[in-house]
């Protein structure tokens, strides 16, 4: 077996040669394209390749973020802090802190809730370390929920619910990841480090978790990629008892232009944070969970799909 060094050297040494005919064709066409000195002042559209190199959106962004921070810091020092008003309703069903546990907080269609109502307790998540605190101004996307201030309100699940996804098999529309392996999605590590996520191809992709048993699912928590403030496009969460998802229930969908082909989603875009995105699964019965994404936006660039961790909180039969 060759060592990595031998392979690196072999690639460095690899040299091909252009044919005379190719040389002729390229030089003739390139010379014809060369503007004469007289044309040199003419303004032409800039080539995309070069634009990619010279335009650094992060410089602009960081300047804007610094300015925003200065303004926010100034406002804070002037008056008492008010809670952020959320004008856009979230699909997540949140329960206020003072709600007594004998009140069933989630209203669900009758066929979705289990026969016997178990006692509801607060879902305790082990959160990874946060690695960023501000939101760049670039994320003024349409139909996006504002970044929550403070931590997520308690979410109630039946007693005995646990993360059923931990260590379970993961498959994907892209079976050969670019970085990492699919099992990282259910390995329990959700820190924002380079070794904790799997990176799969750009474009619309999905990953799928097999819970191995048909179970009652109450909450699905997604950490796609939270090392920086990013917004994933076309996030959808579906569950099914069929591995091919011919008959599936959609729990969340923010694909506003139906690019996934699952129907137009009504949910809002959101910014990835260390708290993850909690989806209320309302006790739905399913064995397979499929998570969709279509790249994330960071500055001007559309990036690949990354999945750090997915937790599926539920009760096995």
């Amino acid at each position, binding site marked *: 077996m060759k060592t990595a060094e031998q392979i690196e050297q072999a690639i460095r040494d690899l040299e*091909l*040669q252009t044919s005379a005919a190719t040389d002729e064709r*390229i030089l003739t066409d390139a*010379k014809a*394209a*060369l503007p004469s000195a007289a*044309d*040199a002042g003419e303004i032409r559209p800039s080539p995309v390749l070069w634009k990619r190199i010279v335009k650094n959106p992060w410089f602009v962004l960081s300047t804007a973020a610094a300015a925003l921070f200065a303004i926010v810091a100034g406002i804070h020092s002037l008056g008492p802090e008010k809670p952020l008003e959320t004008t856009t309703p979230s699909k997540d069903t949140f329960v206020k802190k003072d709600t007594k546990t004998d009140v069933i907080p989630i209203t669900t269609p009758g066929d979705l809730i289990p026969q016997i109502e178990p006692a509801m307790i607060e879902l305790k998540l082990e959160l990874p370390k946060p690695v960023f605190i501000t939101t760049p101004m670039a994320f003024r996307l349409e139909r996006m929920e504002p970044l929550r201030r403070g931590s997520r309100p308690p979410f109630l699940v039946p007693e005995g619910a646990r993360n059923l996804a931990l260590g379970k098999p993961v498959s994907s529309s892209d079976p050969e990841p670019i970085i990492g392996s699919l099992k990282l999605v259910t390995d329990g590590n959700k820190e924002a480090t380079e070794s904790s996520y799997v990176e799969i191809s750009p474009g619309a992709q999905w990953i799928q978790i097999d819970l191995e048993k048909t179970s009652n699912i109450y909450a699905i928590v997604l950490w796609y990629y939270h090392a920086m403030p990013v917004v994933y496009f076309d996030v959808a969460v579906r569950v099914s008892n069929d591995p091919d998802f011919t008959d599936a229930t959609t729990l969340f969908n923010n694909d506003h232009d139906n690019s996934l082909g699952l129907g137009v989603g009504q949910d809002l875009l959101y910014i990835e944070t260390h708290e993850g995105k909690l989806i209320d699964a309302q006790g739905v019965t399913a064995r397979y969970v499929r998570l969709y994404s279509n790249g994330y936006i960071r500055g001007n660039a559309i990036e690949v799909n990354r999945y750090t961790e997915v937790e599926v909180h539920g009760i096995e039969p």
Partner: protein
Amino acid sequence: MTEDRRLWQSVQNGNPDALRRLYQQFKDQLLTAATMMLHDVAAAEDCLHDVFVTLAAEAHRIQIRRNLKAYLTTCVVNRARDYLRKKERRNVSLEDLTVPPAGRDDTAAGRTDPAELLAQKEEAAKLLLALGQLPVEQREVVVLHLNADMTFKEIAKTQEISINTAQSRYRYGVDKLRKLLSEQEVSK
């Protein structure tokens, strides 16, 4: 002023001889980079053609601040990626492979032996086949680092990814090449 910059300024001034020199200086290295990306010599030649024609047409407004080799290879790799994205990703099979032309220095001492030349061609074909099986994102970083001698910092900047991402993609790429090439050895 560096040699690269002087040459580029001549091209910018519309000097056809400078364009020819630029082409002669980098053509083989760029063809190699394009073939590594596209796994098909004819497509790689088209890619090189597009890059040089665009460069010639836009030369007067492109300021090259860094070395020409890194800039040109980045152009070739990005063009190749666009080409691959339009087509299916990772659609390469052994039948698709155009056997690359002989390495340069064919006439140099010790490399004129036909058997040796053939072995060399086979070696190159094997390597290209393995490269063709990497995801495009890994291939890009491998080509820019090894073929264009770019640092991960330079790659991160031009490809708009983080340095860690560039390094991770590279590491996974080389690991996968190791696996692919050892499988080839076993299956022989």
